[in-house]
């Protein structure tokens, strides 16, 4: 419990840093730290697979691309905040809050007690089983979506030159 509180507090602190920092690279690194801490939270919940995938995909791949783009564009100073964006952003945040409050208060407490005792919970075998039997259609659709994105990127790059 103490461990959870420390982790949760740190991840909230880092995610606040993401938003409130002026330096874009500092924000990106704070986001990496947040994602890493969330992965550790998954580890404490015995969901090793999810935690490792969180690091591999988000902290390790997506954020590297973010940094790559930031470094190539090198935004020296951020543009001043415009009122329109400020209002729109606040509205979106409020909407999200109204979505979340009933969810958090309405559901029953967390299901307590450990998962299946044989340690197979969240194992790659179990994940693969459900991915390739119950969820095979969404899985394939997602891979086609990625393929479309790759081809689109290639087409755009070709047109440039």
């Amino acid at each position, binding site marked *: 419990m103490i461990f959870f509180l420390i982790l949760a507090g740190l991840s909230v602190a880092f995610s606040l840093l993401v938003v409130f920092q002026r330096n874009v*690279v500092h924000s990106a690194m704070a986001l990496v730290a947040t994602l890493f801490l969330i992965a550790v939270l998954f580890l404490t919940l015995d969901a090793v697979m999810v935690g490792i995938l969180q690091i591999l995909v988000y902290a*390790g*791949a997506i954020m590297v691309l973010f*940094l*790559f783009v930031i470094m190539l564009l090198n935004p020296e100073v951020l543009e001043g905040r415009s009122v329109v964006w400020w209002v729109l952003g606040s509205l979106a945040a409020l909407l999200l809050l109204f979505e979340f409050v009933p969810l958090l208060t309405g559901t029953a407490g967390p299901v307590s007690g450990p998962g299946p005792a044989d340690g197979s919970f969240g194992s790659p075998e179990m994940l693969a089983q459900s991915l390739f039997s119950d969820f095979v259609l969404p899985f394939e659709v997602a891979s086609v979506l990625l393929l479309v994105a790759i081809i689109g990127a290639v087409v755009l790059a070709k047109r440039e030159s």
Partner: protein
Amino acid sequence: MMIDLGIIAAKALLVLFMVLNLAGILGWIERKGSALIQDRIGANRASIFGFAGMGLVNTLIADPIKLLTKEDFIPPKGDRLLHTLAPCMAFFPPLVTFAVIPFGDVLMLGERAINLQVANLNVGILYIFSMASLSVYGIVIGAWASNNKFSLLGGVRGSAQMISYEIAMGLSVMGILMVYGTLELQEIARAQGELLWSWLPAWGIFFQPVAFLLFFTAAVAETKRIPFDLPEAESELVAGYHVEYSGGKFLMFFAGEFAEIVTASGLITTLFFGGWQVPFLMRDGFHFPWGATLFLPHLAVVLLQVGAFTVKVLFFCWLQILLRWSLPRFRYDQVMRLGWKMLLPLALLNVMATAILIIAW
């Protein structure tokens, strides 16, 4: 409870101790070995009371003292915080990666069975790749925080190179996973103790020779050393991503590179060369294919296995240093072409061929 925790702490400390010290010793091997290869004398100046120990005093005592007491220069227009954090980010991943690499079988101490591996994760290989993907940050952030054209170029090159070769690396391991049917490294090492046609050890190299070549190439590229040293590129970019680093921080980049070599060697050993397996050594002793047996006490068997693992790791460390001092460098476009147009398709083909063979068997 306390004893279990103590055992885990002892294993973690032992592995950290071994990797850090091997990294230091590799620094010595690199300097003396390169001298041997190039017919020079190499480091021989420093000595304690006339004892130079083949340059050991020079590289293991004099060099670190010099580096640690040197002025730590941070570029005035650079980013102080990230400039300091970057070497830590470069040093951290190779050290923690070794946690899932098994360095021996189960050690029985009385009633207690100790698995000679720091963390037995059921997603061992994914853990390794996740840590490898984190090692990009040290370079990118270090390069950016230095506020220097050369280092930024090196950082961009380094991140592109590491992302490209991570893909080939991951796909090349796929064949091994299909053969042994598990992600756990201890299971993979154990499965390699079997015998094929009752005489050939079932090591990964015999099932997946192509995967070994691909993995080895990608692993060398990940360590960013010659022939893949484009992020550093001393002749074009001065020192690439760590051009603005001096003193202890430079030492961390430098030692991190050697720790990466050690970790890569441990991985190659575990995946393709039987890990801690000694050919024909079972739990109770040697069972040779020609029928002879030699029974050994449990402790001797475990020591032999740990010793075999160490010897194999040292061999691959030496091989990587040998490569670094005998091959010319690639050009940057050649590195990219090799990664995307050679290694990646070959790895995909290898996966398909393995799948067909497994189904047809």
